[in-house]
């Protein structure tokens, strides 16, 4: 055994500081036969849970601490020249340019210019102090101290104070619960670097005022740096001398930042990335590679060297090591007893139930029974309901989880009381209790959902109940929950963003000083893979072949990129996790403020699960917001008030809804809008709610790959009879015609054949997903099944099926929970398409760009109404036209229009939108300019997008594309005239402002700077903050909720505009002069303006201007594809709306491309053999021409196997110069560099394939966001950059 213990170790969870994962540190310590190891990350305990788990796995006792910056006491001057960075380089190294030796005054001033035109001044040297927890109480104090440190001062610049440390020490009983370590970067270290022992003693005395003797420890470090500064042996020796003379405890550490010597360059990159500067000797902290996890032998050498320089004998080195060991033994923690890993803490029942309840079980039962009447009325089915309820309550009671269910129900009530839509997600829908409490909206009895999949007496893990809410109002819900439970019991879960390939390339590239443009291009060329796979991807993916890896500089870049893999880089609020616990929550997790000012745990999702904290997933779902918007719009324009969850109003067997789904016109609908799903619903033709559940479950990687769909469809359509493995299994598999689709079916099959309970069967099902556990299950399953009287052949066959499908099946409860919003969205689209699509356009829930949704609206006969300052709102609105009654769906569609939203205008602010909607109607551009006070660019964009056309009677662009100059009456105003006027108005406004400023003695700017800087508050928390201030007598709030809110860096909410200026006729305002006679914008120009301003093509489709060439080339349009012969070769063209790389059976990468050509979507599939020459075009271009072979997949379905792909603007340029023959030649030619390999030849190196336990093979690039920019955020310019110019 190695007796040495490292007490000061930073992992990667010291953000952009440490270079190793806690797991690697624990493993290395175990290899060195150490029995304990500390983790003391900077500014937080983010890695503590992972570290504790890794330690347990490696048989090491964890020691936990935190390394905090602390306000200086003023006893020691700030070490301007002594910051431990490399400044003292004597010219003894060939690679170093001449530099004066010794200590040089810092050349880095307090304000350092960094990337992005900013200055960085908080990297200023604060002294640091390390705290080690010595017990459970010490850990609680450490957590609270860390929270208090983060919640004072500025967000994400945590600096503690001696007072705070003293406060948290004073509450502890024992002098060894929490230790304070003063190391080389403490003020003690500063004093030693100045060789001022008097100051050093003053620092120690100052600390002894607030600590017990046993609390304080001096820490010495030697990284064998040159000179006498921190990290050098002479410095360590001096500190040791001071400690000895003051009788202070002494430990030796190595201030570890990386496991291995070879990882040292990574910390240089991290230093540069943290400071936003390129690598330079001035910017990196280390001088050598000594700060790694050394062995005890190596540390003993250091101890020797230090004691020798201190003039102390051999004995002293031994005492130093023994002292270190003693502190380690005192601080080693037990993960269960001290950290509380594995414990469960629910909020107090009194908090959840308002102090009424006697026991959680009784309250839960009462609430469920009350729910029976509401859910089932007084139906005949009640005995079944009661039996099921008793079963579930028994399990919940046995596990002691009653308060958990009550808490979830309480949160759901909070949401509903605010009129916000909510739905359950996940396996929780399988529980009757959840249905009765109103948490879930699907009846588990009616759809055969099992509770055991969700909650089982055999599993101790907390069940997951996820609540979906309207995304647009998610923060409102967080505010409500926080207010209800308070910051002592409630916090958000955090999420550690780790380095993946794109970020790693950006940070390493910037550190190496590569040009920003090159870095950006290189980063975007990669799909979103892990950083460590960068070079493998470059070998395997054709679109990356152009990157020249041979170049030495890139080799260096990618070496470092791979080393950054998986290191944490940024902490952010998790999009849905909320922690709810009792009043001891902050004893177990530190909190800090999120960007928007919410208290956020330093632990992530996995960590809080290990800690047994109740985590509720409150997930913002855009579709819920879209549906809420749709319902509100229907009511606003005079339609009925719809309650989507009411089965009387929205019957689940509504024929119109299923007719819509079967027609595959499901763009915008939840879950069933993707190309693959549209193909599936076309073939499947769902006829009822159960069918939607099955459809959602079938459209999963597993079923798609293992070809479960075709046998299913054959039986469904009556082409072949259903086959059952055994008559006993018929009831289980009847609903899916003998095909295993659901986890619930796997559970029941095991229960039936092996004759066991469902809870046990679910354990078996889980074990089937694990390669090793599977064998145990097999030896358990066969004897039991045979004993049950099943013949061996049947048992073997059942086993085969279980083995194959266990890991693929889908949880039916989960599918049922999904099916509800799917059905509801389809119902809305069938009955109120305009309102529904207005909701979809406003909240953008789906996978397609909005311009495709607008196209879809037109196909439904809904008018798309242009932007208009006098009618457009912040969101998309339905406008009733013609006033016909909305009786039949068709009639409604024909009479409705969707008005574009002001929010779509590029660069428009929420305040500008609020002023426009409050101040209208406007009578002129001048009126708009004066009263809505929009900025000049926004005013220009409003003009360009036609938002003022109605004011000036500018005609809609109905003229054909061909005529370049539309016919115009003399003397009419054009958009160009209005643009000129905007410029005029802007000049006038500036001139008047100048005059006003000159007239007033004090300029508004200086007046503003004198007023106090207002505290920015978290959204919706301003009132709470004021309450907190009033409530606490001491003057400062103590609730972490309010402290975190005060640190918010989010935008301030826009004040509602109440008073609006009336239209004034001022004579000095420049009125519209005579029309200049400039021509009106042509149709093509209008489309271009629309795309640039709104990102949408309104007046014409973006493809229209290419029509002449496409017609000459005989390109097939989407609506005509169905009429083409099977196996014929076709050309299609369109705007890219989606690229996907889904997992397929062969384990190869397949690229699915969806284009939109104005007549509908076109789906094309690129297999691996054709990706080579065309992959880069697919991922990085927006307007494409695709050649492919057509295949009919069903009565309504066609798919295309692509054989080539070209950029449309490029072909257009060829067409303009060389005519159609030139275009044909361009298409026929195999791209340069690929001509020598005929398509389909297996010349390329074999690609890696991932193999799952079930034997399924998958490409490592499947299901990963591909290279290039997301199709939903298509660059507005690229779509349509002037079709006339060459090169596109």
């Amino acid at each position, binding site marked *: 055994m190695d007796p040495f213990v490292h007490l000061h170790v930073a992992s990667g969870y010291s953000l952009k500081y440490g270079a190793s994962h806690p797991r690697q540190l624990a493993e290395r310590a175990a290899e060195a036969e150490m029995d304990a190891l500390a983790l003391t990350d900077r500014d937080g305990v983010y890695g503590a849970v992972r570290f504790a788990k890794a330690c347990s796995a490696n048989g090491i006792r964890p020691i936990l601490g935190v390394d905090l910056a602390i306000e200086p006491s003023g006893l020691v001057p700030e070490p301007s020249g002594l910051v431990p960075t490399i400044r003292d380089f004597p010219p003894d190294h060939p690679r*170093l340019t001449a530099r004066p030796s010794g200590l040089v005054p810092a050349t880095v001033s307090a304000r350092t210019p960094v990337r992005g035109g900013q200055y960085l001044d908080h990297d200023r040297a604060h002294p640091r102090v390390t705290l080690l927890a010595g017990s459970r109480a010490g850990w609680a104090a450490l957590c609270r101290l860390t929270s208090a440190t983060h919640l004072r001062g500025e967000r994400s610049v945590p600096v503690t104070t001696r007072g705070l440390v003293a406060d948290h020490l004073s509450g502890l009983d024992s002098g060894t619960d929490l230790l304070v370590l003063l190391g080389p970067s403490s003020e003690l270290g500063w004093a030693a670097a100045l060789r001022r022992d008097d100051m050093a003693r003053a620092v120690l005395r100052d600390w002894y005022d607030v600590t017990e003797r046993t609390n304080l420890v001096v820490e010495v470090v030697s990284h064998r*740096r*040159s000179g006498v500064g921190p990290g050098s*042996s002479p410095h360590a020796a001096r500190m040791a001398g001071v400690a000895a003379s003051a009788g202070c405890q002494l430990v030796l550490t190595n201030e570890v930042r990386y496991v291995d010597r070879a990882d040292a360059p990574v910390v240089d990159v991290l230093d540069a990335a943290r400071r936003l500067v390129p690598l330079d000797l001035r910017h990196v902290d280390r001088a*050598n590679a000594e700060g790694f996890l050394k062995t005890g032998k190596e540390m003993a*050498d250091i101890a*020797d060297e230090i004691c020798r320089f201190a003039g102390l004998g051999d004995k002293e080195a031994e005492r130093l090591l023994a002292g270190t060991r003693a502190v380690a033994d005192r601080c080693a923690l037990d993960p269960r007893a001290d950290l509380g890993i594995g414990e469960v803490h629910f909020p107090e029942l009194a908090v959840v139930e308002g102090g009424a309840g006697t026991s959680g079980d009784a309250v839960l039962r009462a609430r469920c029974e009350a729910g029976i009447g509401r859910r089932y009325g007084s139906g005949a089915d009640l005995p079944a309901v009661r039996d099921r309820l008793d079963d579930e309550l028994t399990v919940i009671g046995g596990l002691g989880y009653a308060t958990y269910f009550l808490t979830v129900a309480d949160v759901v009530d909070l949401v509903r009381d605010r009129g916000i839509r909510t739905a359950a997600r996940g396996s929780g829908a399988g529980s009757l209790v959840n249905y009765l409490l109103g948490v879930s909206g699907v009846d588990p009895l009616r759809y055969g959902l099992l509770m055991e999949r969700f909650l089982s007496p055999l599993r101790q893990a907390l069940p997951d109940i996820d609540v979906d809410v309207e995304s647009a109002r998610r923060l409102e819900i967080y505010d409500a929950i926080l207010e209800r439970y308070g910051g002592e019991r409630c916090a958000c879960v955090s999420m550690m963003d780790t380095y993946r390939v794109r970020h790693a390339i950006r940070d390493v590239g910037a550190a190496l000083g590569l040009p920003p443009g090159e870095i950006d291009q290189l980063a975007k060329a990669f799909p979103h893979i892990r950083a460590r796979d960068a070079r493998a991807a470059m070998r395997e993916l054709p679109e990356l072949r152009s990157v020249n890896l041979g170049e030495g*500089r890139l080799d260096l870049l990618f*070496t470092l990129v791979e080393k950054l893999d998986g290191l944490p880089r940024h902490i952010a609020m998790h999009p849905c996790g909320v922690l709810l616990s009792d009043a001891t929550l902050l004893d177990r997790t530190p909190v800090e403020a999120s960007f928007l000012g919410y208290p956020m745990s330093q632990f992530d999702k996995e960590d809080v699960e290990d800690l047994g904290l109740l985590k509720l997933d409150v997930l913002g779902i855009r579709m819920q917001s879209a549906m809420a918007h749709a319902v509100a719009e229907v009511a606003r324009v005079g339609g009925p008030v719809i309650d989507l969850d009411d089965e009387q109003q929205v019957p689940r067997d509504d024929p119109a809804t299923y007719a819509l789904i079967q027609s595959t016109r499901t763009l915008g609908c939840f879950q069933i809008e993707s190309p693959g799903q549209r193909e599936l619903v076309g073939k499947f033709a769902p006829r009822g709610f159960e069918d939607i559940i099955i459809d959602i479950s079938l459209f999963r990687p597993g079923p798609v790959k293992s070809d479960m769909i075709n046998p299913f469809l054959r039986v469904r359509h009556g082409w072949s009879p259903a086959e059952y493995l055994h008559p006993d299994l018929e009831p289980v598999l009847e609903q899916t015609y003998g095909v295993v689709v659901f986890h619930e079916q796997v559970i029941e099959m095991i229960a039936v054949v092996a004759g066991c309970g469902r809870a046990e069967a679910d354990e078996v099902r889980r074990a089937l997903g694990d390669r090793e556990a599977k064998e145990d299950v097999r030896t358990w399953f066969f004897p039991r099944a045979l004993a049950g009287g099943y013949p061996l052949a049947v048992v073997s066959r059942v086993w085969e099926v279980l083995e194959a499908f266990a890991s693929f099946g889908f949880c039916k409860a989960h599918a049922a929970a999904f099916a509800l919003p799917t059905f509801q969205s389809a119902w809305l689209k069938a009955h109120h398409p305009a309102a529904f699509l207005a909701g979809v356009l406003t909240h953008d829930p789906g996978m397609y760009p909005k311009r495709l949704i607008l196209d879809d609206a037109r196909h439904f006969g809904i008018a798309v109404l242009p932007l208009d300052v006098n009618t457009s709102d912040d969101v998309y609105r339905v406008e009733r036209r013609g006033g016909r009654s909305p009786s039949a769906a068709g009639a409604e569609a024909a009479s409705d229009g969707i008005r574009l939203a002001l929010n779509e205008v590029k660069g428009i602010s929420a305040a500008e939108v609020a002023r426009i909607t409050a101040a209208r109607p406007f009578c002129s551009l001048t009126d708009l300019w004066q009263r809505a006070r929009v900025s000049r660019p926004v005013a220009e964009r409003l003009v360009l997008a036609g938002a003022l056309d109605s004011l000036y009677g500018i005609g809609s662009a109905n003229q054909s594309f061909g005529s370049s100059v539309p016919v115009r009456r003399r003397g009419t105003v054009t958009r160009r005239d209005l643009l000129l006027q905007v410029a005029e108005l802007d000049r006038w406004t500036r001139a008047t402002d100048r005059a006003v400023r000159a007239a007033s003695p004090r300029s508004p700017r200086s007046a503003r700077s004198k007023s106090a800087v207002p505290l920015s508050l978290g959204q919706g928390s301003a009132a709470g903050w004021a309450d907190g201030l009033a409530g606490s007598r001491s003057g400062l709030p103590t609730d972490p909720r309010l402290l975190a809110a005060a640190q918010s860096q989010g935008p301030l909410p826009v004040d509602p505009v109440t008073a609006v200026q009336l239209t004034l006729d001022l004579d000095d305002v420049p009125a519209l002069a005579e029309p200049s006679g400039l021509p009106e914008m042509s149709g093509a120009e209008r489309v271009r303006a629309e795309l640039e301003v709104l990102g949408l093509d309104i007046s014409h489709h973006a493809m229209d201007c290419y029509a002449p060439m496409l017609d000459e080339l005989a390109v097939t349009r989407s609506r005509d594809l169905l009429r083409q012969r099977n196996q014929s070769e076709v050309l299609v063209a369109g705007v890219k709306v989606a690229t996907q790389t889904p997992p397929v059976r062969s384990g190869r990468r397949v690229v699915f491309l969806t284009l939109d050509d104005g007549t509908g979507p076109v789906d094309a599939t690129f297999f691996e053999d054709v990706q080579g020459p065309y992959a880069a075009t697919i991922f990085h271009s927006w307007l494409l021409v695709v050649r492919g072979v057509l295949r009919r997949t069903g009565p309504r379905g066609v798919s295309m196997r692509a054989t080539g792909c070209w950029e449309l603007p490029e072909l257009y340029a060829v067409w303009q110069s060389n005519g159609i023959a030139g275009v044909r030649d361009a298409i026929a030619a195999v791209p340069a560099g690929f001509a020598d390999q005929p398509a389909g030849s297996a010349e390329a190196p074999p690609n890696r394939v991932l193999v799952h336990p079930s034997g399924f093979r998958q490409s490592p690039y499947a299901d990963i966001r591909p290279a290039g920019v997301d199709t939903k955020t298509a660059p507005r310019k690229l779509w349509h950059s002037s079709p006339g110019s060459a090169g596109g």
Partner: protein
Amino acid sequence: MRRYDDPIDVRRGLVAGLDAPEQFVWRGRLWVVREVIAHWVRTGAWWDQDDARDLLAEREVWRVEAGRGQAVSAGVFDLAFDWGDGRWLLVCSSD
């Protein structure tokens, strides 16, 4: 202080209980180390190189007082060991 870049042969051993260069041959003459004055390790600006061969390029330096035999004449030398190529160099002397 004079600067050199001379390859030397070094024999390691214990100097006052510390594992250090004990003797070295510089320009054909044997020097015996009497005392280790300082000892440090440093790395260079690896980011200026064009490949990823040896990113550490560590150099360990011993500042020693050494003399020739029993003679009074002693000097202070910086002896450097390059971990990359395993060579000893004499980089600095002050008489």
